């Protein structure tokens, strides 16, 4: 339990330091805003249209593939921890699980989802 208290303290101190640095910079710095200064910087060319637009769907596909593999790899951690004491049976089971994961990867691959179309 006390470990988690230290982790919590770490989060708090880890937040205070960057917040402190930015606040100090905000206090020390000059404040002279003007409309030109606040415009979006796009190499001096005037900004055209919105930036919050539809984006390439491929990014979404990669995120989706990542999600599947990430969750399933996290499932493997308990298996890896107990592998030494569980013997050959657990090893075979784990290998079957990983083979199913690889089958998923092959399926995504064959479907052309990994191509940057």
């Amino acid at each position, binding site marked *: 339990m*006390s*470990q988690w*208290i*230290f*982790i919590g*303290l*770490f*989060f708090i*101190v*880890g*937040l205070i*330091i*960057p917040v402190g*640095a*930015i606040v100090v*910079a*905000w206090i*020390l*710095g*000059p*404040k*002279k*805003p003007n*409309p030109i200064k*606040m*415009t*979006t*910087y*796009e190499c001096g060319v005037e*900004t055209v249209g*919105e*930036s*919050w637009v539809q*984006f*390439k769907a*491929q*990014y979404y596909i*990669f*995120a989706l593939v990542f999600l599947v*593999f*990430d969750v399933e*790899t*996290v499932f*493997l*951690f308990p298996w*890896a*921890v107990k*592998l*030494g*004491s569980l*013997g*050959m049976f657990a090893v075979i089971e*784990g*290998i079957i699980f*990983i083979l199913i994961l*690889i089958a998923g*990867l092959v399926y*995504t691959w064959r479907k052309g989802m*990994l191509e*940057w179309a």
Partner: protein
Amino acid sequence: MDFLKDPLKVAADWLLGIFASWGMPEIAAQILLGFLGILLLITLLMVLDIFLVWVERKVVSRFQDRIGPNRVGPFGLIQPFADIIKLLIKEDITPGGADRVVYNLAPILSMMSVLILWAVIPLAPTILGVDADLNIGALYIIAAGAIGTLSIIMAGWSSNNKYSLIGAFREVAVMLSFEIPMLTVMLIPTIFAGSMGIVTIINKQDTWFFFLAPLAAMIFFIAAIAELGRAPFDMGEAESELVSGYNVEYSGMKFGMFYAGELLHAFTFGGFWAILFFGGYRFFGLELVNPLLAIAILFFKAFIGYWLIMWVRYTLLRIRIDHMLAFNWKFLTPVAFVLLMVTALMNALLADLPGWLYISGMFLSNVLLTWGALEIARHYSRGEREKVEGAKQVVEVHH
């Protein structure tokens, strides 16, 4: 003499005594001590971070045949402090079109995600108060790293700038993709140690895990570089086309947070590499002499990892994003999965054999797997090349 042997413990006991004399309950005194220890550690990290800026600038200039900062102080050592003063007195600008809350939160989260990684890094075998040996240490590293990914997409999206948005998308796509092989090879030290706790992983490394799984160490190193978004995987901030990617709109201390966070992150990953595969603070029993020596050993090893990351960064060219993702999904990920299966199988098969046979069996299986994987990749890429350059090749053959 006690003080020289373990100064941190002596200081901790002394402080506990003072807190107790104030009539503080035991648990509150422990927590206050922990807080002070964490504050000390993070302050030290920030000071280290300042010098990392100097190290990085010096090293890059040497790679590019320049001298680097050499005017301010001896060897330009005071230069980073001048930079910090400059960052502090710059105007704090939030672009008009930006989403204010998210925009200002992103650099804070970026720095925090790196600092909290140090919660699970054991600095020395006997240190008190500062470190927690979490029994899910390996998972914690991944989870804390994910906050960094979040901060990048937050920065890119909230800036309301097309360059930052494209940069953030690329960076996040790369970071997410390379997290899979990284997670997979982190399972391998877990298998050897039988625990996710970082301290247990270090204690089990009587032989460095590098000798048991050299391929895993290499995959972790490559994935770490991609995770950091550094060259050759720095498509997210390709300065020749996207100015500087997700942090275009940031200036002053907010930019400083991203920059310092990136450098400290690189150093931290050097530390993880040392911990998972090179024995962390262990060095032939030297770590038991004095906790400060153990910390020095860990930092030295982390610096070697950091140096290698810099070496790769300033030597290799940037890779196109589709090649980068194809390299991950079609090569690194399958290799990591196969390596995991082979390691699990060999671990069970060789468990009862004497130590030297176990180590050499593991090492050889890794070498064989590396050779096989590279051979398959070579065969495949030769096929690809012949598809593109086929006609030319035929002409050459018939000459």
